[in-house]
């Protein structure tokens, strides 16, 4: 809020009643009450923290493989006498992968890339697609037709196919995967922001702003942007889980992150042959993807209800 000058004496008499809250204060208070959303936020915060602190907390080198220790079971199972090396109770709590690398370490390191691949394309698409959609929705006319019909072309392809096609053309690699995922997420974000902007544009307060002398740019910046940001942002958060899964899928197909880098989708792929021998180890990256994407989805649901301005 803007700086408010000192209140004259007249206001002090009535200020004892319930104070009015700011928009973000209201949103925050609602979020605090929503237990599911708070739990998801907590889990995501832990995952993020673990990923960020991976070099500090990981027990092993993520790239160091040791052939004799290939595909160890979980550490807890070791203690039950199911291992040939009874001393290794906590050496590999989540076992080892097909090259004998510590799974806990690789899951922690994998989180860094997977979260990065989940958030970055969505953020890029939010900026580019949001801008295109708002311009299309606010200006209307031929600008709208041009942008929206171009976007429609991308709808002709299923998103997975489109991502694979673009990545396949550009070649493997993290940057190329991010580019292709960004392209995949732009069309739906443009759609959402265009329709939200169109509905806001015809509302009275946009007319009222014009009637009080505001120019088109000021109206866009002040009134339209602030009102459409909520819905677009919420929609974008729901795409993060899709992005994580698609990024994992690209890595699984060998089009995203390249070995020996740790990334959940890639790990899922390389552990595939071990599904019968060490199913619990092979399923671990999938479990990490599941938990993260479910949390992102529930969080975006919670945000949706908390950020609804029509109270």
């Amino acid at each position, binding site marked *: 809020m803007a700086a408010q000058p000192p209140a004259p004496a007249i206001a002090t008499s009535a*200020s004892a009643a319930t104070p009015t809250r700011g928009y973000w204060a209201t949103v925050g208070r609602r979020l605090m009450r929503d237990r599911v959303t708070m739990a998801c936020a907590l889990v995501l915060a832990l995952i993020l923290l673990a990923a960020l602190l991976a070099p500090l907390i990981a027990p092993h080198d993520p790239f160091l493989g040791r052939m004799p220790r290939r595909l160890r079971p979980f550490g807890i199972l070791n203690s039950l006498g199911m291992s040939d090396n009874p001393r290794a109770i906590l050496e590999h709590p989540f076992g080892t992968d097909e090259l004998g690398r510590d799974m806990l370490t690789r899951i922690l390191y994998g989180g860094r890339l997977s979260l990065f691949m989940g958030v970055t394309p969505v953020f890029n698409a939010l900026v580019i697609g949001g801008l295109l959609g708002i311009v299309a929705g606010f200006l209307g006319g031929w600008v709208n037709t041009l942008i929206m019909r171009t976007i429609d072309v991308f709808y002709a392809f299923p998103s997975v196919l489109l991502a694979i096609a673009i990545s396949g053309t550009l070649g493997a690699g993290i940057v190329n995967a991010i580019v292709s995922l960004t392209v995949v997420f732009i069309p739906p974000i443009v759609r959402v922001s265009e329709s939200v902007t169109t509905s806001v544009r015809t509302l009275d307060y946009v007319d009222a702003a014009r009637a*009080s*002398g505001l120019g088109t740019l000021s109206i866009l910046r002040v009134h339209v942007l602030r009102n459409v940001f909520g819905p677009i942002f919420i929609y974008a958060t729901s795409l993060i889980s899709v992005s994580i899964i698609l990024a994992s899928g690209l890595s699984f197909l060998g089009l995203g992150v390249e070995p020996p880098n740790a990334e959940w989708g890639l790990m899922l792929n390389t552990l595939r042959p071990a599904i019968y021998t060490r199913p619990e180890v092979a399923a671990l990256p999938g479990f990490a993807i599941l938990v993260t994407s479910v949390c992102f989805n529930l969080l975006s649901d919670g945000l949706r209800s908390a950020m609804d301005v029509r109270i």
Partner: protein
Amino acid sequence: MTDAPGANGAEPLLAVEGLHVAFHGPDGAVEVLNGVDFALARGEVLCLLGESGSGKSVTLRTILRLHNPKRTRVSGAVRFAGQDVLGLGERAMSQLRGGDIALIFQEPATAFDPVYSVGRQIVETIRRHKSVSEAAAWARAVELFQRVQIPSPERRLRAYPHELSGGMRQRAMIALALSCNPSLLLADEPTTALDATVQIQILLLLRRLQQEYGLSVIFVSHDIGVATEIADRIAVMYAGRIVEMGPVREVIRAPLHPYTQGLLGSTVRKGMRARRLNAIPGAPPNLAALPPGCSFAPRCPHAEPRCTAAVPEPIAPAPGQLVRCIRAPLA
């Protein structure tokens, strides 16, 4: 404000001449205004009266040029304080909007942006038009809230639109409209969305502020009671034309146009218990296909062949009065 209201020879504050407005729709152009003429003196209150679709709100919005220029065809002239409003550049126009001419909306709940406090929006408008500090604009907003009789103005200014009651919101809307000392206030059915007791409070407030500031007001309404409460003159609109215009007293007491007579006949008054209201038969014409001649002829009980021959020219049965009906008595 030194001119006497309606003084002869004085330059009117606002003059609307031969205003035609057409909207381009999917089914071709629809003529919504078919030649509207009126003049408004300084300090005068004119009420545009008519049913939905008669062109009342379009007239107001055309004065501020709020319609999308790509889909609207406007001809005629609007002169405000000597300036040709329809010929102004976009920059000069946005100086006029909210500065010299302010608009009050029908639905205050949607006319405020829900994500900013009302105070923020008033400060925004003040600073848009006047180069004053944030603190000075805020002080001005507090003063305005006191003028429109909002209790504990400091706290209400920090409230969001949904935290205010309907009446309070409309008071805030009026404060917003008055924030830059306009000389012309356009009010688009400002009391329609309010309940009856709040309605009369808002009307009295508007009347008082109008007299205090010497404002000229164009008040759009479909409620004759509201019109008589606030206006000096009434202009009755039908199908995009003013069919009758004159001082409130004359129009109410002796309506000359059959449409005005019909409107008055269909109003509930004291001592009308257990009597049927005389509704005007038929429905308003389709603006895309107006009947030839007088637009009211198909519904008029006194229609004759002459009526459909040509659009009746305005007649002045008495000074300051005007009616578009061939049956009207000449002065």
